[in-house]
């Protein structure tokens, strides 16, 4: 099965057969004889296989270290440069990708490998059109102070926020992050100190979820990440897991919306696929299903149930505080933003819902105090939200 990677909305497929990335002579040798002790240069062959395995497992830092270790001694410098180009490409370091491909062509000797790599990368690099945009992006990776205001979300400038209530759910979500987006930086706002230490990755940090309501928790969370240097914030519901390309797609959609000169870009929300979960009614609501319309598409009120139950990303400068209530807090924040001119969108990105929809989003669970708050403070949303008058 092909592994999909997206950039700028274009999907391409990478063949899963790792041997296609090996130098021609190594590939022939290991195809003919699968006993490593019989290989002429077993150490180098194993090094290449380790690098390819690390790339396939998205352990890109490991792959880069292995490449650097091998670069002094390899007799296949062109093939190694191409592998390095792949690593830089996956890290969205497009300048370096081009430099590595250029170096590979100068070393020569791996024409088939180079041709394959170029045919994979070219459509995506073309999609990025402007070299300046790539340079801006690379600059934002290197020096946060140089970040351009118009830069688009990347792993370097986005922080993913999780507000877990259940350790098992969190563990499952973190596993999918580790597997599919190992470069993502996570801020986990914990309700209890037991949650700290579930992962000791240096890309994870922990905050304190001390809000009395969902709305005040969200506001507290955003206040806590103000100490970090991130332009974009992405909230993740703990009841989902990622697809391999969820984050890549949501980044690509955000870039596309920016390139379309969308003013006042608000939230960009991923869709969800409930096929692996059963909700309380045993059904999946229509708005949860992948739709056929061209995506990203403008947000409509039928998408409101998605708001707090998937992934949503925003430029943190556009954040406005959520109302201090438990139920419908995120939905009201969406509507408040819309009312002052922000436009929200639904992304082609999709995540999988692996838990039944939260019961506490049910209108029936809303307390009288909250209903009263909405009637008193946001009476004009009553019909949209379906709150009893």
């Amino acid at each position: 099965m092909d592994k999909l990677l997206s950039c700028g909305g274009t999907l391409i497929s990478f063949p899963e057969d790792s041997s296609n990335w090996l130098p021609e002579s190594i590939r022939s040798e290991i195809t003919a004889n699968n006993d490593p002790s019989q290989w002429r240069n077993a150490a180098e062959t194993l090094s290449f296989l380790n690098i390819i395995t690390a790339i396939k497992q998205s352990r890109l830092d490991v792959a880069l270290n292995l490449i650097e270790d091998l670069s002094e001694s390899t007799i296949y410098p062109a093939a190694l440069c191409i592998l390095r180009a792949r690593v830089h490409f996956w890290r969205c370091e497009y300048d370096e990708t081009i430099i590595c491909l250029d170096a590979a062509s100068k070393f020569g000797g791996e024409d088939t490998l180079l041709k394959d790599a170029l045919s994979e990368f070219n459509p995506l690099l073309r999609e990025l059109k402007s070299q300046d945009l790539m340079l801006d992006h690379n600059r934002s990776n290197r020096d946060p102070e140089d970040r351009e205001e118009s830069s688009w979300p990347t792993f370097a400038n986005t922080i993913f926020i999780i507000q877990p209530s259940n350790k098992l759910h969190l563990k499952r979500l973190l596993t999918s992050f580790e597997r599919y987006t190992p470069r993502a930086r996570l801020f986990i706002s914990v309700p209890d100190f037991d949650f700290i230490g579930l992962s000791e990755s240096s890309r994870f940090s922990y905050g304190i979820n001390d809000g009395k309501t969902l709305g005040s928790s969200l506001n507290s969370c955003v206040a806590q990440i103000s100490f970090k240097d991130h332009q974009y914030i992405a909230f993740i519901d703990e009841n989902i897991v990622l697809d391999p390309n969820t984050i890549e797609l949501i980044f690509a959609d955000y870039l596309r919306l920016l390139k379309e000169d969308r003013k006042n870009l608000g939230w960009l929300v991923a869709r969800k696929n409930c096929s692996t979960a059963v909700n309380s009614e045993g059904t999946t609501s229509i708005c949860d299903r992948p739709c056929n319309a061209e995506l990203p598409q403008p947000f409509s009120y039928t998408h409101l149930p998605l708001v707090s139950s998937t992934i949503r990303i925003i430029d943190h400068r556009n954040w406005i505080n959520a109302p201090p209530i438990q139920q419908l807090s995120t939905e009201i924040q969406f509507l408040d933003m819309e009312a002052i001119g922000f436009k929200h969108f639904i992304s082609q990105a999709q995540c999988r819902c692996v838990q039944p929809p939260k019961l506490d989003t049910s209108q029936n669970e809303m307390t009288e105090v909250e209903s009263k708050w909405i009637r008193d403070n946001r009476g004009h949303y009553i019909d949209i939200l379906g709150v009893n008058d």
Partner: protein
Amino acid sequence: MRIIVCTPGFDLNSGGTLVLDVIAHKLVEAGLQVAFLMLAPIKLDSARWTLGLANQHIGSKVLRGIPVINKNDLDQSSDIVIYPEVVFGNPCRASKVVRWLLNSPGKICATQIDFVNELVIAHATHFIPEGMECAMPGAPDGNKINVLSLAYFDNTAVESYFDNAKERNVSVLVRKGLRYHATIPKFPDDWLNLDRLPFEDQLSEMAKSRYVVSYDPYTMLSNYACLVGSKSIVVPIPGCSEDQWLPEIGRRTGIAYGIQACKNMCWEAQRRELLSNYSLIEERNTKRIATLIELMRTRFSWAGINLG
């Protein structure tokens, strides 16, 4: 007749030494002859250590003006010796011993206390060993244990740091946390561990932090964290309720026992209450030292001094 206070020295990072310092100075203030005897860690055997009398005066220790004597200068029959609970037995062989429980006996190191012949005073009720009774406040009552909390507080330091701008989300204190928690997790890179910093730097860094999280449930630094404007949270001891943690509600002011408790805190009100409590510290310390003198007079049939 003198009061001899056994102490490891004055250390702003050790709540116990601060209490011993306050006791000594308040006794001087009451007109009594007071001296220090120095303590140092000693090995009881291959597995256990405790605090015992130091062989010599340790010159580097801060003692704030009170003279230090040697064990040989002690009058074993007339001098009253005050030991913290960490001292194993009665190394001075004094006939009049006050034992101050600055922690639960045995919690910090091996110890031995003669609950029958010593006047035992607890810094807080939760330090009283299980099965022993607490005396009514200020009322000498046989072998029941009296509770006298004397506190050291440096208001000037707190005031100078209160307005520090927040630069960090979380600072963390571990200190004696491993005595209460089986494991301490590895902290994220952006959390600052305050343990090894000098006291002044701890205050300064706490003031720059939005939250101060302490794995040590009883450090005074948690109170200071609230006073310098941070949200101070103690990580709950597994299996220990808030009431078991600090039975006296007044002692919980300014500290949230766990994140859930943090949700219900009005931090500014807590800080004001804590400051108001601390403004009364001098007065309370004076009253409590008078109680101590009364307890010693009764227990040791000592004419003592007339404070009246």
